[in-house]
């Protein structure tokens, strides 16, 4: 372990030094719930409403 900076407890320093390494990876949100039929029909209804 590197030297403990002044004014910081040893354990606190250790915790900060133990942080996760930065190497991000994307984790896209998955689709689990089907879109309601109503939502699919909405554009069609809007098209009719315009006429």
């Amino acid at each position, binding site marked *: 372990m590197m030297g403990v900076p002044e004014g910081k407890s040893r354990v606190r320093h*250790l915790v900060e030094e*133990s942080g996760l390494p930065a190497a991000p990876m994307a984790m896209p949100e998955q689709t689990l719930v089907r879109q309601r039929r109503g939502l699919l029909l909405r554009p069609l209804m809007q098209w009719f409403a315009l006429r």
Partner: protein
Amino acid sequence: MVTLRRILSLSFAITMAAIASFLAAGYFYADGVQWLDPARVVLLAISTAWLAWGAGLALNGLLSARGKRTPDAPPQTAPAVRTAVLVPVYNEDPAKSFSHVAAMTRSLDHLGIGGQFDFAILSDTNDPRIARQEEFWLDRLKGEVGEACQVFYRRRESNPGKKAGNIADFIKTSGALYDYLIILDADSLMEGVTMAEMVRRMEADPELGLLQTLPKVVHARSFFGRAIQFSASYYSPVYAGGLAMLQGREGPFWGHNAIVRTRAFAGSCGLPELPGRPPFGGHILSHDYVEAALLARNGWRVRLDPDLRGSFEEGPDNVVDFAKRDRRWCQGNLQHSRLLAAPGLKAWNRFVFIQGIMAYVAAPLWALFLVASIVAPAMKVIPDYFPVPGLLPVFPRVEQANALALLTGVVGLLIGPKLLILLDGAVTGRNRRFGGSLRCFFSVVAEVACTSLLAPVMMMFQTRAVIQVLAGLDAGWPAANREADRVSLGEAWAASWWIVVAGSLTIGAAYRLAPDYLPYVMLVTGPQLLAPLLISGTSFAAAGLGRRFGLFATVEERVPASVMRLQEGILLRWRSDVPAEAGEAVARPIQPLRDTHTPAGAGRT
């Protein structure tokens, strides 16, 4: 081949349900039919199908080849392959959890492959006292691990997504560094050679997205805990073998003691929040089943390898903690009803969701069947003994043979697989590892007696859990308590007084409405009247005669794995040379079950 096995297993369950329906209809309809009778037949059919499905898994397991096993020497993998071992913790005893990490790093170091594995303790702890203890024990842990293994630690101030969110947070922060992630629980323990073998198997099959081990329960102390431990060690490998025979590419994920391909998991398992409020909306509670389904949806193989040894976990040591865990799992599994129609899922994964739901819905179905059977005789019309005036009387048939066959069949489905596993162990020599066939026989008898007595009590806990979930009560996220002391009679009464009341009312109803059924009803209600005694009595340490004679002895108890010995030694040393105020174990008094329930939406998110 897998499809054929699945069809045969399903056919077995359906056939058993059909036979039960036939026998039940013969018995129930013998003295006239009224509307409750078909309902009773349907309830019994569904419950029997569920029992038969479990028995079918055991039969498949007995037929499966159980020859393979983890090698004793570490397999060779490319040094460039990087694996992170993730240890999510949440208000658990840090001395204990971290001693597990220390032992696993040692186990890897002994094999000379510690450099290929990093450990990440992912804390979601929100109790400031335990958070301080985690920092204290991190210091000890850092001093314990060798040079080769790196140990990271981070604590989230808030816990979005709970455990699944905790893992996702790691992937989003550090996932790109690692080819594989071994996902553990705070109480998990794994041999270094097992972790290395898991990596080798992932390397050998580029389509494998997730590999699940069968963790053995260890460190149980109470009679109840050791019965569960024996069950997990003696029966579970056979049931898991059966499950593996049916898994195809859509095997199970149980949330821990498994390895995932980081790229596959990150690309497939980002879980959304479900619309609406808990218990059915919000974060996905039983995330593991869903993650397995999502991996399979994206074309990855998910596999359970029951032959992988050296994988351990701990379990609840008393009925109260078991029921608390069940409450959480019940909510998670019932929430899956929202996902049955999720787009693109494999049919088998949908069926797995149904199995998970049935695991809890079965209890209220049995309870309903019991209630219906008590009420039904009171609703029967008085038989007409003289349908044709002036001729001889016609007495209703009493189909006692049907009733006896039905009872024998149901008991057979429950106990038969266990007896077959005992017989198989005697023939194959497997029983020797458990102390011999005689010890196994007494352990099986004691386990069957214990689970039979507790079954009506567990039925009530599960029935209440289902009702609470359906009523919109959220279980929140209680921390697991595997260090609980024994349950006092007062605590047992606080947790189960309502079961005693329900049992008494059922006896009263049976006495009034169906006195002929009273002896059968007593088989269920008797243990319910004794619930506090059973809960408290089975929580006592089983260190007496039973243990001395090897009752519930397991392979791991007789010959502890090296990583278990390492962990026990480290924890003993840590606890013996640490000031009490700094290293005190996190003792949580057992709370009555009602304390874990919060109104919908009020639980942690």
